[in-house]
């Protein structure tokens, strides 16, 4: 069973006489161990959707099911969910990491003893044990973010919402958080990830959903989406000047020398003939063209805007 099923979510806000259709028919599904990157430009409806899933914004219509339960009707459905929300501290700075975990554990329905026990486990797992008695405000930004994730996991939720988890972190801290996400997913945690850092989304996600103006404009397996937008061409780079004879033979095979690179557009099995022509020049790189998520994202969002 999917741990998250959101169907046809709609939300309209009215402010100062203006009506904004923030979310117009969004549906998302997520299984255990799966990381879904939920992407979109600013104001596309990501945060509203996430908050509707978390029961913090009531949808005008549509439904949310967390492990089969509706958080808008049954508050205990929230026991299935953990969330780290963007732009928020998420934890109390005047408490220590262990106190924060214990406090929020009880708030999520655990006993204080169980929350403390789980807290020690999580701090150990996330390498925060040494800091368990330091005040949270004295921790580095990266440690605070790790703590926020640890707190969100105290009650062992089936679904974790991570809203911009690497925003504002230095390279090392961002890598640590990414590693945490990988490990959590490998351990069976379902994760709904929103981020503007598309390289992070590409590295971490199994699936991608792109939202624009309140509607999902693409949703697919990350690899499939990248393949769909990747070309068939190969690029070859050699560390030597090409003589005229080689240039002509390459052209006959359908390969075009361009600015120090050779672009080959023919059938993949003939690539070996191209390489034969280049022998024994020193090869620097042979690469199949592969779109990255940034290209895919921009292309899709622009296509929709032009449509």
């Amino acid at each position, binding site marked *: 069973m999917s741990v998250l099923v959101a169907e046809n979510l709609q939300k309209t806000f009215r402010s100062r006489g203006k009506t904004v259709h923030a979310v117009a028919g969004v549906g998302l599904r997520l299984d255990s161990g799966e990381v879904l990157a939920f992407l979109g430009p600013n104001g596309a409806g990501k945060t509203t959707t996430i908050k509707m899933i978390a029961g*913090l*914004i*009531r949808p005008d219509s549509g439904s949310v099911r967390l492990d089969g339960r509706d958080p808008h009707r049954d508050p205990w459905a*929230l026991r299935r969910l953990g969330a780290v*929300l963007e732009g*928020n*501290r998420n934890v109390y700075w005047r408490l220590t990491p262990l106190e924060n975990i214990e406090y929020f554990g*009880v708030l999520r329905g655990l006993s204080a003893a169980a929350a403390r026990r789980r807290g020690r486990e999580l701090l150990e797992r996330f390498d925060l044990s040494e800091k368990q008695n330091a005040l949270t405000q004295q921790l580095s930004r990266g440690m605070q973010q790790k703590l926020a994730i640890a707190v969100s996991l105290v009650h062992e939720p089936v679904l974790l919402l991570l809203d911009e988890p690497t925003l504002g972190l230095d390279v090392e801290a961002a890598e640590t958080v990414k590693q945490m996400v990988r490990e959590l997913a490998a351990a069976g945690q379902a994760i709904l990830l929103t981020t503007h850092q598309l390289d992070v989304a590409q590295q971490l996600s199994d699936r991608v959903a792109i939202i624009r103006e309140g509607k999902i404009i693409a949703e697919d397996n990350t690899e499939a989406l990248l393949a769909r937008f990747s070309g068939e061409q190969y690029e070859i780079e050699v560390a030597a000047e090409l003589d005229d004879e080689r240039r002509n033979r390459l052209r006959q095979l359908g390969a075009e020398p361009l600015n120090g690179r050779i672009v080959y557009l023919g059938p993949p099995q003939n690539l070996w003939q191209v390489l034969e022509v280049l022998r024994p020049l020193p090869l620097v790189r042979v690469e199949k063209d592969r779109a990255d998520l940034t290209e895919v994202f921009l292309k899709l969002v622009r296509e929709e805007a032009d449509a």
Partner: protein
Amino acid sequence: MLRLIAIEFKRGLLMLRRYPLEMLGQLVVITMIFYGLFLGARYIAGPAAQFGGRLDALVVGYVLWTLSLFAIGDLSWGLMEEARTGTLEQVFLSPFGPAQVYLARNLAGLLTTVVLNLGIMLLIMRLTGARLEFTWSALAPLAAVLLGAYGLGFILGALALLFKRIQSFLNLFQFVLMFLIMTPFEQSQGLLRNLGFLLPMTPGAGQLRDLLARGQAFDPQLFGLGLLNGLVYLALGLWIFGRAVGAAKQRGLLGGY
């Protein structure tokens, strides 16, 4: 609910242990304000003036006023602060729901609030020479006043959720509260006396003055009315707060201050 109260109590104590100067500062400032007023009144009345029972009643009223300020303000100031720092939504993610969490927080904060105000009362008594006759039966009307105070707290909390920045209103509300707590409705007659039973906290405040400052005996019937008043305002407060939570979720007002 007991678990919630216990963990909120622990949280409150930890904060207090780490930042004891905040509480000490409040104690000194609140006491000094009353002492300043007292010195001013004595200057106007002349050196030979004796305030007697009126001073005692005033001390009861003032301490009750500051106690209610804490009881009422904790929730709304807390909500605004948590919305600013970004822990509000995490509290709202609790399956217990915000009303239960904040009610537990209020009850857990009771001990600190009472200890602080007891300190203020003792300091004022020492500085001004006021004499209050403590009786355990005073705890009953005090509880009635606190119930009403928490009710008002939830109503103001509802406003804080919906209108976000209500600091100016809260500052003005202190004076409304002063009127409610310090006006001796119990000594007036007719319509005004009856009105006193309907306003939040006033019957309990009146009974406390009777017990502590005027040395009167405990009147169970009066306490019954005070308790009913407190329960009605608490129920009203919780109901309004619940509606405000619903409206805030409908309008997407949680977080993002």
